[in-house]
């Protein structure tokens, strides 16, 4: 029945989609969605996942001076089932690619990824023509939300990245980069 309805829009009657669009959703879930987003943004549990040099700066951010725990992000969960954000820190070698993909799939659904360091953005200092050993960029494996350049970036850059990720989560659906 819906299909015929849409076809008869030529004679000026609004089609069903327009009607639905005007009426808006029957149940307003975005208030709950907004609450959940606010909570998700304020408690990001990273996955302990250091690959190379940037992993040391990741540990430095968790340590005493820069202390990610001030933002609730200090709870490093070793198991992928309990982590929210995967901070890819370090060069991704080709042999490590499938492992990262598997870890990403094991994480429960509202999950985000931070590409921490030049190697995870597009290969960093290890990028040269015919490079056979590394995956040039984490976004070839996982959908990355925040990119933090630097080799290695300072711990403050990671905290800035986490704050940017929080804004992105808080903005929810209507987030514009």
């Amino acid at each position, binding site marked *: 029945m819906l299909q015929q309805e849409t076809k008869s829009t030529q004679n000026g009657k609004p089609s069903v989609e327009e009607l639905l669009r005007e009426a808006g959703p029957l149940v307003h879930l975005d208030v709950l969605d907004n609450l959940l987003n606010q909570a998700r943004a304020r408690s990001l549990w990273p*996955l*302990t*996942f*250091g*690959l*190379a*040099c940037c*992993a*040391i*700066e990741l*540990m*430095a951010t968790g*340590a*005493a*001076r820069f202390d990610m725990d001030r933002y609730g992000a200090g709870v*490093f969960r*070793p198991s*992928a089932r309990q982590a929210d954000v995967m901070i890819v820190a*370090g*060069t991704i*070698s*080709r*042999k*490590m690619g499938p*492992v990262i993909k*598997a*870890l990403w799939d094991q994480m429960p659904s509202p999950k985000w990824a931070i590409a921490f360091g030049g190697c995870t953005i597009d290969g960093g*200092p*290890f990028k*040269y023509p015919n*490079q*056979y*050993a*590394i995956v040039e960029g984490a976004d070839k494996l996982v959908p990355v939300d925040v990119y933090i350049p630097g*080799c*290695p970036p*300072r711990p403050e850059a990671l905290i800035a990245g986490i704050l940017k990720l929080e804004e992105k989560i808080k903005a929810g659906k209507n987030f514009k980069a």
Partner: protein
Amino acid sequence: MPELIHVGRDEDRDTYYLNMGPQHPSTHGVLRLRLLLKGEEILEAEPIVGYSHRAHEKMAENRNYIQFLPNTSRIDYLSGMIYNIGYCQAVERILGLEVPERAEYIRIICCELNRISSHLLWYGTLLMDLGGFTPFLYCWDDRENILDILDEVTGSRLTYCYGRFGGVTMDVNDEFLQNTLDFCKRFRERLPEYETLVTENIIFQNRCKDVGVFDQELAQDFALTGPILRAMGHKRDVRRDEPYGIYDKFDFDIPTLNGADTFDRFLIRVEEMHQSLSIVEQAVSRIPDGPVMAPKVPRKIKPPKGEYYFAVESARGHFGMFIVSDGTEIPYRIHLRTPSFANLSSLRSVLRGTMIADTVAILGSIDIVLPEIDR
């Protein structure tokens, strides 16, 4: 990444494979340990490496000598300064370049500070593997002080590119020297605090004493170097055996113990921190004035044709660079003989018969850095 349980039943023992996979809180990076277990006891241990292979040696063959500098501090990013300056010293020895006295002293100070910061990070991660989280944070607090001092003059916190052929990029001012002395004094006051918190802790001693005892022929079989070898009674240190730079002008002794277990390897590294502190203090007190860069450095580095080998003592052991030059500006081959590659291969025979909790302790006491193994 635990696989499904498939219990392999051979005749009398039910064994199963456990995968301390590439992503594991205590494998210090991306090492994968495939353990054949019977209950908690390990029958077979196979370290699988290669998960952070970044083709350093291939990159050495497509860029000239000066452009390989940033790679050197990323091979072993915990003793980045030692590797970076070791590479510069290797090429200087090939070219016969003379480095001014002040630059040599600055190099010694920065290398020893880097060694202390690497040992501090090892200290923290070993304790975290054994379950005590607090010492990890204390170590990081002291390590941040070292990073600030080195940041002041080298510009980076972890992967230094401070050395150039013929000297160092930036001179050192008095404030840097004063900061170093303050750090040494403050760190010496803190070490007894670590002592009471960890070394005398009865639980820690039980977890480390007589755990992972290396028997003597392992040293020769696996070409072990560094603190592991010194914990087995061999007084071997590249700074003393094949002196490079001006290490022969400083008096520091090489700590050796012959218990060869996790606790002795722990004590060796703590003692090495003391020694490095004394080296830094001697260097700061006797640093001369003068230039930090050799007067005339050839614009294009073209080492004469031939095979060269140069070794330095990194925080983990004997790091050697086998450089083959064919006279052009691009190195023909640079092979990086890294200490952890040999040290880790000894895990195959050491882990037999130990328990999982011991694997973590032994792996922590061997102190490996994965990209240095996978190059």
